[in-house]
């Protein structure tokens, strides 16, 4: 099992989807993930257990321009 987190992610991708890392650009894209993980850590707790499903379309209508 890979110990480097990005190598582990590549192994997981291959295992779960059958897609191999195609090139250096893909490897570079993966380098953004530590920052993305930190961003997700920062918003933890803002999503809590919900009893009702959230619908984006309902929010669009609730917030729509008056008269439309």
């Amino acid at each position, binding site marked *: 099992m890979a110990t480097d987190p990005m190598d582990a992610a590549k192994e997981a991708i291959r295992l779960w989807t059958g*897609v191999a890392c*195609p090139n*250096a*650009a*893909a490897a570079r894209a993966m380098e953004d993930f530590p920052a993305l993980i930190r961003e997700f850590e920062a918003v933890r707790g803002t999503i809590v257990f919900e009893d009702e499903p959230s619908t984006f379309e309902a*929010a669009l209508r609730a917030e*729509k*321009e008056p008269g439309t």
Partner: protein
Amino acid sequence: MTDLTDLSTTEAHDAFRKGEATAEALVRASLARIDAHDGKVNSVIRLDREAALEAAAAQDKARAAGILAGPLAGVPMMHKDMYYRAGKVSTCGSSIRGDFRPTRTATPLLRLDAAGAIDMGTLNMAEFAQNPTGHNRHFGDCHNPWNLPYCTGGSSSGSGAGVAARFFAAALGSDTGGSIRLPASICGVTGIKGTQTRVSRAGVMPLSFSMDNVGPLARTARDCARIMRVISGHDPADATSAPEPVPDYEAALTGDLRGLSVAVPQEWFFEGADEVVVKGFEASLEVLKARGAKVARVSCPSLRAIGTYVAVVSRVEAATIHAQWMREKAGDYAKHLSGRLYGGYAIPGTWYVEALSARGPLLRQFCREALADHHVVATPSLRMRVPTLAETDIDADPANWARHMAISANTRPFNYLGLPTVSLPCGFDDRGLPMGLQISARPFGEGRALMVADAYQRDTGWHTRAPVLA
């Protein structure tokens, strides 16, 4: 008579309707300009020369017979090569779909046809609509007509470059993270993405079902208003299209901004922004104020979460759609695209669901923060000056990744929020490349955003400038 290629969409239609120009003359003028200059710009993938002339002849015959013309009759248009036309190849900017012949025609094209627009063919684009720069390994990079080594913006690169170059009056683009507004801004034309669900996507290549939008790029806000009214509205072929009635957007273009309040978010949109961009944006606010608008600086803490979640949704959806080709023929994609798609497979399913679950609540929060006391939101379309193609070429150097991805920082949030958003020209940077002003309104407030853009264009001439093509 002026050069017919100088006419905007509404002007070209008016000239046709009044008998000042035939549809054939309008199409021939466009074809001649494409023949003369597209070798340098590379905006066209397929030119349907004979079909366009036949359609023009039919328009002229109908007018001579006194048949009432549609609101876009006589107007030469071309479209991003991802709008399906039954029986014609739609490459989607790729080699993978190099011989793909759909069996149906996209609803937006059918609606434009019914309005009398003349479809002259298909336009260059980012491969599968997935880069913000205009690079294309299969059909060649599209070049900015204001300065050829510079980006056009993407993914609707040919749409932005071709309208700017006066090759045709207007074009359809698509916008999942800024792909209409970026080429509009970078090429100095006007473009709008509507409210999510406002325009049918039936027969349009998907990239991200949650955030894809259809919309026009044209010279003016009035042109966009005309085209948006034609293409918007519920479509039985697209169950996700909104049933809300489509207003007469042009009727809202009064030029009167008295009583209008413009919100300028203090977070996100100015982080690391180039000084010339900020100056141009501030100058554009003065134009709105001179017409009676008030401007307020507002705090929008929701933008941090919005910026986080928007990075997830389209990547996962695009990676899912492309999974089989990524397994079987990843080498057929440009490196920057397979690289971008690859990252999508690393994102946990729980993150994707979290991003979608937060979308409605964050839209409500953003509206409370920015639009409870204000009518529209204004931001720069890009934070940076227009980069060159070389500076953003990931295939040549993966180190260009960060600059490449940063181009769409200011457009992406409005895809996640689903808000109608216009980009319009607001000046030129210190290297002579266009800059854009972005105006967003509440859901289904396309008319409001276009009204502000039109008012701005009544007092400025940026949108009337044309690049010199030697």
